[in-house]
């Protein structure tokens, strides 16, 4: 009897705030991948936020008298071709990588979410049109699309968010459209409609909350790809405009002198690998835990 009341209580009121947070703790304890990935991401986040205070030198200050110095007590990781401190540039580069990845995915979720919901919910001609558009964008790998857009828009932070976001948006759109199509047919949507709710309210109150879990999981998986895309674009000279420090660009700069001073290439590249690894661990962990149905989508760019 007590059990029945408890479960009834749960149905009526839903999980409490406290219980929801307990759930998060339980998930982290059960899945080492989520725990490791999350802590790694948090460390990067901390470094990015604290960059002005923890970086020993100004990352863009040129000092031609100290160019290409080896790692020493003064410059822990040495200096680059114009005497800028490598460590400081790496620390500030964390900001670029994190901000580009997160904001481009946010942009992709907003764009893709709108397109996906509109296509799935309203159907008909609009669906055909939007799906055609999605298919065209999906006819190119995201990286190739980003290369072209960066070439046209020119280097810079906003162009990069836009270029990477556009590549990711059709993938989110397809996911949201699929979820919308399923949720749309459920009884509670019919019930909501029968008591006179409008489209807008149904979308906001009933459709979107149901798309949330798959979108959050998939976005986390895509974050790793976004870091890779940003690094690749910067490596090709199609990323941030100099002198803003970015890891991919530091790999290019370091590659020119790799034979004699390998530490610029190795450190900048290792950081890219570790950040991508962190997002991948977190994304894979979340996916296996919350939404195993997304498995096949695992490495879709």
């Amino acid at each position, binding site marked *: 009897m007590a059990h029945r009341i408890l479960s009834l209580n749960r149905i009526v009121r839903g999980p409490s705030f406290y219980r929801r947070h307990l759930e998060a703790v339980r998930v982290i304890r059960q899945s080492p991948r989520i725990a490791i990935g999350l802590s790694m991401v948090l460390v990067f986040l901390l470094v990015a936020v604290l960059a002005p205070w923890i970086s020993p030198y100004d990352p863009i200050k040129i000092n031609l008298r100290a160019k290409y110095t080896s790692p020493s007590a003064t410059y822990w990781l040495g200096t680059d071709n114009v005497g800028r401190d490598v460590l400081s540039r790496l620390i500030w580069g964390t900001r670029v990588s994190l901000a580009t990845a997160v904001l481009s995915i946010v942009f992709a979720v907003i764009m893709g979410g709108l397109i996906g919901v509109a296509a799935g919910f309203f159907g008909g001609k609009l669906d055909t049109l939007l799906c055609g*558009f999605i298919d065209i964008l999906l*006819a190119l790998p995201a990286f190739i699309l980003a290369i*072209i857009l960066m070439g*046209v828009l020119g280097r810079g932070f906003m162009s990069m968010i836009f270029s990477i976001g556009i590549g990711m948006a059709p993938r989110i759109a397809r996911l949201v459209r699929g979820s919308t199509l399923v949720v749309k047919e459920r009884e509670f949507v019919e019930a909501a409609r029968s008591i006179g709710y409008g489209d807008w309210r149904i979308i906001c109150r009933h459709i979107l909350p149901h798309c949330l879990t798959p979108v959050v999981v998939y976005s986390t998986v895509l974050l790793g790809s976004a870091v890779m895309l940003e690094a690749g674009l910067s490596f090709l000279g199609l990323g941030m405009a100099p002198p803003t420090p970015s890891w991919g660009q530091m790999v290019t700069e370091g590659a020119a002198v790799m034979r004699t001073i390998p530490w610029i290439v190795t450190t900048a*590249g290792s950081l890219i690998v570790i950040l991508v690894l962190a997002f*991948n661990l977190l994304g894979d962990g979340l996916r296996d835990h919350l939404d195993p149905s997304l498995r096949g989508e695992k*490495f879709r760019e």
Partner: protein
Amino acid sequence: MLGYLLKRLGQLPVTLLGLFTVIFLILRVMPGDPVAAYLGDVASPEAIRDMRIQFGLDKPVAVQYVETLWGMFKGELGRSFVSRRPVTETIMAVLPNTAILALAALVASSVLGMLAGILAALRINRLTDYVVMIFSTLGVSIPVFWLGLMLIFVFSYKVGLFPVAGVTTQPTLLAQVHALVLPTAALGLLFMSVVARMTRSSVAEILNMDFIRTVRAKGASERLIIMKHALRNAMIPIVTVIGINTGLLIAGTVLAETVFVRPGVGKLLVDAVLSSDYPVVQGTVLLIGMVYILTNLVVDLLYAWLDPRITLGG
């Protein structure tokens, strides 16, 4: 089946037309002037005007669109702004290079990835499995360009085993293959890791199924079980993952060609983008789009062949 194939092939020109339109619009409507970029800041207004006329950039965008499209029907992709050579010729000259690199990486990484995945699945939750999983988790996190540089650093600079450049003028097959090793490894590792992980999980899943127990009970050898029953059934997700990730391979080719200074379609595209060479960008992008769409079609056909339960067309 044939009807389905024809329908899909029929969609190809429609998608390509859409792709061409989108790319054309991106290149013409968005800010940025190729002629100014090409001639530089010192060019006189007359020189810029002459060049615009020469490349037909003075005409309205709609006219340019129709003209370019008409040219493509005749198999001409226009002339490069920079080299003035026909785009088709430019692409065809380097296409074999790219195809060889991409195929080498695809084959090597699929075979090695499947082997590693099967090994891991057979020893699931044991040391071999952990080693494969750790390496493949790391493998999907390493950018192609950085791996390429590290391979050059170790195997070219330190050990001196392989050349720095990923292409050679020496005509012998051995020299060609020798130069191809590092680019293939750089491009293939990520793909191999993806395939290994997928193979591991799908083979492990199949090995747990009832029919495998039946086969085992009949006394079939372990080798027969794996080769004939487990692998064949596990092929569908593996083929899917290979198909889904051709995009990774294409993107990786661009980076590998840049790192190893290997002439190819990817390097052509990057150079064209950096020098605002629109006709070359259009040509390479259409080619990449076509390859990408056709690969997806091949993957869908492979499904039907591997799993008779799947009927195409429905």
